[in-house]
């Protein structure tokens, strides 16, 4: 029982971090129908930047989120302007191919700059834990989860309380109607993409402490995030949260009770089961499919 609860605690903490990372992916998908496969590579990029800041300048990796978040926002905006905006209106698979191409380029660049070996940010507290009874809370996980939840809350407030947030939600519901009422859909799309990528800033900084990473780790991250948003319902923010917590717990349970070797399988298993059995996910509304445009 203790083992089970401990696995649950770890799973929920890691799930909080996943939630932040998946929110960016699901936000981008919801607004512009683009699956940003490069999201995984952007996480690793942020992790490398965090690692470099920590190693070279001595900035705490978790505080590094303050630098990586705006940096990734700018990178996201540039990527959108250079590539994504030119493929609007093309078939769904086009965006997957294009962002996959970006992921490969990023992987190559990171390999050149930082080499293809495992890196890890290891500040002093990385091996320390708080204890509560027979359970322990690793400090890195706890701080990481807290930051992730904080950023997620800020993102949520922004989406629900600001004009930009309303515009984003309007575009995700119906592009043409949003245009009709005066929303500059292209500008909103660019900002959404940048915002979605910005979540990889804080998320990547946290991830650099929690997991060792190398440029090729992005496949693992993107499959994990895809599993989450597929499970939660593509395009749904609350769904991403539920999906992330579920997947976090599923992973730690697999590690605890089966074998770490099979933990990498969890996201794929989730993707397959959900897409085939309940394609709209947990939170996705059942939308009509015959809309005539």
């Amino acid at each position, binding site marked *: 029982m203790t083992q089970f609860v401990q696995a649950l605690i770890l799973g929920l903490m890691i799930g909080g971090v996943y939630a932040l990372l998946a929110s960016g992916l699901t936000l981008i998908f919801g607004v512009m129908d683009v*699956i940003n496969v490069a999201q995984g590579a952007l996480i690793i990029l942020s992790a490398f930047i965090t690692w470099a800041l920590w190693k070279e300048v001595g900035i705490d990796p978790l505080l590094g989120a303050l630098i990586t978040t705006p940096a990734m926002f700018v990178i996201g905006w540039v990527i959108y302007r250079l590539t994504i905006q030119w*493929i609007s209106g093309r*078939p769904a698979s086009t965006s997957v191919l294009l962002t996959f191409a970006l992921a*490969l380029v990023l992987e*190559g660049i990171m390999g050149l700059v930082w080499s293809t070996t495992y890196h890890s940010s290891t500040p002093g507290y990385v091996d320390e834990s708080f204890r509560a009874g027979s359970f322990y809370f690793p400090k890195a996980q706890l701080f990481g989860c807290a930051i992730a939840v904080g950023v997620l809350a800020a993102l949520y407030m922004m989406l629900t309380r600001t004009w930009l947030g309303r515009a984003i939600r309007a575009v995700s519901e119906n592009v043409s109607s949003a245009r009709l009422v005066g929303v500059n859909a292209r500008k909103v799309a660019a900002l959404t993409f940048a915002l979605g990528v910005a979540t990889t800033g804080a998320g990547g900084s946290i991830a650099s402490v929690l997991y060792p990473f190398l440029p090729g780790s992005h496949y693992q991250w993107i499959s994990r995030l895809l599993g989450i948003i*597929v499970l939660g319902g593509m395009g749904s923010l609350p769904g991403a949260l539920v999906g992330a917590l579920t997947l976090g717990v599923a992973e730690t349970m697999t590690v605890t009770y089966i074998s770490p070797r099979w933990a990498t399988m969890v996201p*794929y298993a989730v993707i397959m089961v959900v897409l085939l059995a309940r394609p709209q996910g947990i939170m996705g509304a059942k939308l009509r499919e015959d809309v005539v445009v």
Partner: protein
Amino acid sequence: MTTAEAGPARRTGVPGFVTAHGWRVVVGLALVFLMLYPVVSDDLYYQNMIILSLLLAIMGSGWNIISGFTGYVSLGQSAFLGIGAYTTALFAVKVFEGASPFWFIPISAVVAGIFAAVVGSVLTRTRGHAFVILTIAFLFVMQIVTLNWSDLTNGNHGLSLPLPLWNIDYQNWPFYYSLLGLMLLSVAMSWWIRRTKLGMGLIAIREDESKAASVGVNTSVYKVLSFVASAIFIGAAGGLYAYYLTFIDPRGMFDIVVSVQVVLAVLLGGRGTILGPVLGAFILEPLNEITNNEFSGGNERLIFFGGLLALVVLFLPRGVIPSVAELWARWRGAGKAALVGARIERPVAVREADAEPEPAHGTGRSLLEVRDVSRRFGGLRALDGCALEVEEGTITALIGPNGSGKTTLFNIIDGTMSADSGEIRFDGAPIDGLPPWERAHRGIGRTFQITRLFREMTVLENVVAPLRSFSWRQLAADAVSGAEAQRAQELLDFVGMRAFAEQRAAALSFGQQKLVELAQILMLDPRLIMLDEPAGGINPTLVDHIVEMIRELNRQGKTFLIVEHNMPMVLGLCDPVLVLARGSCICRGTPAEIQRDERVLDAYLGEHYVADQQAGVS
């Protein structure tokens, strides 16, 4: 390429390469070069380069069938390379130790085909994004299983195959010629598929899957078959590749970067064309070798491939062959100008004399029965206990305000959508559980409010595409047989669109598309024809023309169910008229009765209007 040229590519409507005489010579010379190269030159470096190009060409040809023809983009196709490689390796290492791995190549193809059939029948139930993601997941699942099932596969440590035993003088000839043979086979298969009913159905699925199903194409079987066809030669090539490498491991064999190279090669050459994948492979692989030599590691290759893929997706989405073919056609000034000014001919079969057409008479039998059908979209009840009947031999109208559920009802009747509850009976038998194509086979033909033709096909092909039944033999039949072409020409004559037979459907005006869509469903020889706003958005002359055709077809025994907002047309043509409001059928009657019915006025104009009229205000 001009449309006047003969040959299979013309009939199937692909801007092809093979037809033009000059290109035939080029292709022939390239083939001779490939046949003779190892004999003439003993340069192993270039032999290896060609071997890898052939491998990529085979994979590209395979991918092209599921993704180029059928339009289902797969990023998991390299899984079949791994499946084929491991099949051959396991047989050669564990089952028949000492036997030549060449024996097991056919088994690799079969195993890959079986995997594709099983996986494909599940995966092709999804579309678009979901399908792409699932193929990626499939690839990684295969990789993880191969890694972790180390008792069988030796996991991370990989498997070593026996070394080739033939005389060193023959170098890599057995690999070279086997792969060349496989490539020719896979290209031949693509070519053959493209000219059969199967191929035409696949293109129809790519252009508009629901539409294809509604005109009788058994899309499930077609999609699975195309997935299998796309996998078998990749499986066989995987077996050869494993032997060629003599060592395989899970990460190298189930590699998503290989999938990306395949996609890139086909996009480069020309997706959906027969030779595009081969051309793309022979462009890409040498580039790959050059980057390998110029740079030290894998990082540059990633940047190169990723960058090239991004550039192709952004700037050359149609690929080299279609782009060059188009430039060529433009340069030669070839290709018929669109027949924008051509007149739509009067239908030949229509008698002009009928000034006062007698109203259609029903036979008293009910052809279509809708019983208590409901359908919700989230909180919206589009249909709420809808019940109605269409009598055989009638021209029945279905009218109702916008949003009353007419199109939803059509979608439920033809099977595009399923009802939450209720029952649909056609000709006395329930059809609720049947897929759309079965309903088409039973005699339900349906047009769409916004026309849905297969845009990249010609008008003639659009009319020939519908299938009145399903049989395995039919799949291999010629896409356009003589008898069908004849019948299609007659139908195009009937709707007055014969002059447009060779035009691309996308080039037609909206009204012309409506006529072609009518001819298309007539190919099904349906007993019930459902028209969704046949007069919507077209000019009055054409409306008259359509009315005449409906009358003529009705005389020949066709029953009609027509959704229409053009009231003069409805009231002059149809009897009875059904009125749908807020998701259920509120009344049924002759046009005269309907015009007087208060419930109808209420549904259309709101109660105030009725009240005002009664009070004499209006």
